């Protein structure tokens, strides 16, 4: 398999870089023959030091999902070096017009999102490693005076097949290899049975730096002469600045400037995220800036709408079930099928908006001068930061430098660049002075691009044998794309918002889907497993209800639907019914499932539940065991997970993501929601936005990864969607009470 490569963009890149125009694969490496004193850089990806240590850099930003280890593993595999000689880093480079960070678009996945980094980088990463290995072999052939076909590689050395003790270290060959012409055609790749690194469990490469407190994160960075900024925002969403009295603020020792930042309309500067009005205080320290902020006297205008989120949800649901619903997909004749059905089951499910609450609050360092702009930021999308800075400063991209650093959590929050825009606006008002903008936790929670909430109606018709013969799924939501309160159409409804491809609905011949908007003035964005994080819950809980209505076991009921070779989904996410069925069948065996039992609730009552879902390339099923405590509290005693994510790069990374996503999903289902009353976001810090601690966490998680020869897919998201439904189904088994509204909080009390 070779990467899809656009030749013209490579040539353009090469011309811009002022290098020789070389053959195609070399351009995939992005040609910069580096200085030799610290080892030879072979393209942007790999640097080999004279002592044989290898530094591998990737353009996918690390947010805790493990790709800074997984992608270098792929490159190191084909390069044929010892994994313990490898250190990893983020690729930095000059932004250019039409590029994704330092690379032409479409080669590697830049940034972090959609569980894309591994699945979209696997093929090109292999090619990068294999091509550099070819260059090293060619150099060895010249140095040793031996024909290429007598040479082979092993663990960072080239050796003579006939006299295996004749060996040369890569470190001695790298400088020569770096300036060699590229071999023609795609390089030979290993066959999977030759893999020595791929498929082995590896710890995260940066773990030691993390646990010794090294300056890895955005918040840890600095520039000489840097000042610190914080922002004061209106309590009421969408209020604008009316008056500012900054006398007292400017009198606070260390405060240097107060800057008014009017609201930015969606689409005005970058992407389509809006950013509310704020007054920034810039000072010599973060603490002085906070004191200056507290001394500000600002009055705000009254916005057109003071949102009450609960009322908005009810209005949206009324629209959905009344005349205002928009059809977004149908097959067959659902109306007739419902009329024929022996039994019709209907349920309403509600999930709230939630915040990302990355533990590292949003922050960015920006420096703007008349000639250039420099940005250091923890981001999931470096090139969006660049286009944002370009829109604000008017500078061309080749005058804008983005240093993307490790993020203290992402979960989709850092796919937006509103915080970068704010930092650049402040820095632009203070030309020549680097400014670090740091959002307080209150600012971070109330100025998020929230996961949209949703009120859904699911209906299914069962025939006399208990098969689903009619399916209707209606979704009212604020919609993920960052629309404002006055937009009433379904324009901008993004794919996946209404789950027209999900099983089992998509396997029912007669089906219909509808959508209605819930108005909201707050911004929405991508939150770990967008779309699936709610639909996985509603569908998999509803299927549990259907299985019960049909008098069937939840495993058997699903497996009876998931027969045949159908491939569902769209171009980006195709999923095979067969692979989903395999996960469910394996889950049944490995969890020791013995049929459903419904308990009476009350302390000591136990329950088991299951769910399985496909999202973002991978198939995951969980069985959850719970025990009820006093007052509706419960403990999660055990989780058994079965995963099909194609060929596994790093099983340890997959297990970590599974454990983390389960606890993220548990936390969210237990207690998280963002609500607005009278235009004010009600949750402000971890006292009112209750993040789970170890006392309620799931600590016993068994992760089973199924062997597969399919192309690798990512695991940053797919374990999350099936957890909340497996949990709610277990709670039903323990108590006989269905959870149809999240968060769970005290519903079982």
């Amino acid at each position, binding site marked *: 398999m070779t990467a899809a490569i656009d030749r013209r963009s490579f040539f353009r890149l090469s011309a811009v870089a002022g290098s020789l125009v070389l053959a195609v694969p070399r351009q995939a490496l992005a040609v910069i023959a580096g200085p030799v004193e610290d080892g030879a850089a072979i393209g942007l990806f790999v640097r080999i030091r004279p002592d044989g240590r290898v530094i591998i850099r990737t353009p996918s930003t690390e947010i805790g999902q493990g790709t800074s280890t997984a992608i270098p593993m792929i490159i190191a595999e084909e390069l044929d070096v010892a994994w313990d000689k490898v250190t990893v880093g983020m690729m930095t480079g000059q932004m250019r017009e039409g590029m994704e960070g330092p690379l032409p678009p479409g080669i590697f996945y830049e940034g972090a999102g959609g569980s894309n980094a591994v699945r979209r980088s696997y093929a090109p990463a292999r090619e990068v490693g294999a091509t550099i290995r070819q260059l090293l072999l060619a150099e060895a052939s010249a140095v040793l005076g031996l024909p290429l076909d007598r040479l082979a590689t092993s663990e960072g050395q080239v050796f003579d097949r006939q006299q295996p003790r004749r060996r040369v270290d890569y470190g001695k060959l790298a400088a020569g290899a770096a300036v060699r012409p590229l071999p023609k055609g795609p390089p030979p790749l290993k066959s999977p049975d030759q893999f020595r690194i791929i498929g082995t469990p590896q710890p995260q490469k940066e773990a030691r730096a*993390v646990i*010794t407190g090294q300056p890895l994160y955005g918040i840890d960075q600095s520039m000489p002469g840097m000042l610190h900024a914080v922002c004061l925002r209106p309590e009421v969403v969408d209020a604008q600045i009316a008056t500012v009295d900054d006398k007292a603020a400017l009198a606070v020792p260390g405060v240097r400037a107060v800057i008014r930042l009017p609201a930015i309309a969606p689409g005005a500067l970058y992407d389509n995220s809006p950013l509310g009005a704020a007054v920034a205080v810039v000072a010599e320290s973060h*603490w002085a800036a906070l004191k200056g902020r507290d001394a500000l006297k600002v009055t705000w205008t009254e916005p057109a709408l003071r949102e009450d989120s609960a009322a908005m949800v009810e209005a949206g649901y009324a629209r959905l079930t009344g005349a205002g619903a928009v059809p977004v997909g149908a097959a067959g004749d659902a109306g007739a099928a419902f009329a024929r059905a022996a039994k019709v089951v209907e349920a309403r499910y509600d999930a709230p908006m939630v915040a990302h609450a*990355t*533990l590292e609050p949003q922050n960015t360092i920006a420096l703007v001068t008349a000639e250039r702009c420099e940005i250091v930021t923890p981001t999931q999308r470096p090139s969006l930061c660049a286009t944002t800075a370009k829109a604000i400063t008017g500078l061309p991209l080749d005058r804008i430098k983005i240093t993307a650093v490790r993020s203290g959590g992402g979960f989709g929050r850092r796919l937006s660049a509103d915080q970068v825009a704010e930092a650049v606006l402040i820095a632009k008002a203070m030309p020549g002075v680097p400014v670090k903008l740091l959002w307080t936790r209150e600012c971070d929670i109330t100025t998020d691009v929230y996961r949209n909430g949703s009120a859904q109606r699911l209906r299914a018709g069962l025939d006399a044998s208990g098969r689903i013969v009619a399916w209707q799924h209606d979704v009212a939501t604020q919609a993920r794309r960052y629309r404002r309160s006055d937009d009433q159409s379904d324009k901008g409804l993004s794919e996946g918002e209404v789950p027209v491809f999900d099983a089992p609905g998509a396997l029912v011949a007669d089906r219909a889907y509808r959508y209605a908007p819930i108005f909201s003035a707050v911004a929405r964005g991508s939150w770990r497993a967008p779309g699936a994080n709610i639909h996985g819950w509603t569908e998999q809980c509803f299927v549990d209800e259907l299985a019960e209505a049909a008098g069937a076991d939840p495993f058997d009921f699903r497996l009876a639907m998931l027969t045949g070779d159908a491939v569902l989904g769209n171009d980006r996410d195709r999923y095979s019914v067969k692979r989903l069925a395999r996960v469910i069948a394996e889950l049944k065996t490995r969890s020791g499932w013995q049929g459903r039992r419904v308990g009476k609730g009350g302390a000591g009552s136990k329950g088991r539940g299951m769910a399985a879902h496909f999202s973002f390339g991978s198939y995951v099923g969980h069985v959850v065991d719970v025990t009820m405590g006093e007052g509706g509290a419960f403990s999660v005693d055990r989780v058994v997970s079965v995963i099909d994510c194609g060929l596994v790069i790093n099983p340890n990374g997959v297990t*970590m993501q599974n454990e983390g996503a389960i606890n993220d999903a548990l936390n969210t289902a237990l207690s998280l929601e963002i609500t607005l009353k009278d235009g004010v976001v009600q949750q402000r810090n971890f006292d009112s936005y209750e993040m789970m601690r170890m006392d309620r966490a799931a600590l016993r998680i068994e992760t089973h990864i199924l062997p597969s020869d399919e192309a690798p897919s990512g695991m940053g998201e797919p374990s999350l969607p099936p957890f909340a439904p497996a949990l709610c189904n277990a709670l039903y088994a323990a108590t006989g009470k269905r959870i149809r509204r999240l968060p769970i909080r005290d519903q079982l009390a």
Partner: protein
Amino acid sequence: MPITLKLNGQPRAWSGDPDQPLLWFIRDDAGLVGTKFGCGIGSCGACTVHVDGAAQRSCVTPMAAVDGKSVTTIEGIGKDGALHPVQQAWLDEDVAQCGYCQPGQIMAAIDFLQQNPSPDEAAIRASINNLCRCGTYVRIARAIQRAARSGAKA
């Protein structure tokens, strides 16, 4: 009168705002950034340091409260470049995902283990209340037990 304290064994003097939280002294003035900011209200524990050996949330500890005290941060727990045994346990269990909470988790765990040298899981669950947004609790609990088995003390 400036405030005087020891930071990782080194004497320091501070003559700024006595209300300034210790966290910002450590990060912005001393330039030790392993201690993290997460909430500023004493809830998440990302800013956990030791004051006279006891775990404390530095974001709600004013400078005035550490006058004459000895403060240890994540940068100060290893001896002569070697890892503290609790850090080693964290590496062995490969705990960190994003890693942002982990320095605070380790500081909390060291103090906890000093008082509970061989804790069971229930004691760990009940006592360690630092937030991990990435949900690495499975491995935090395991690493604390591993450190206890290896006899880790401060």
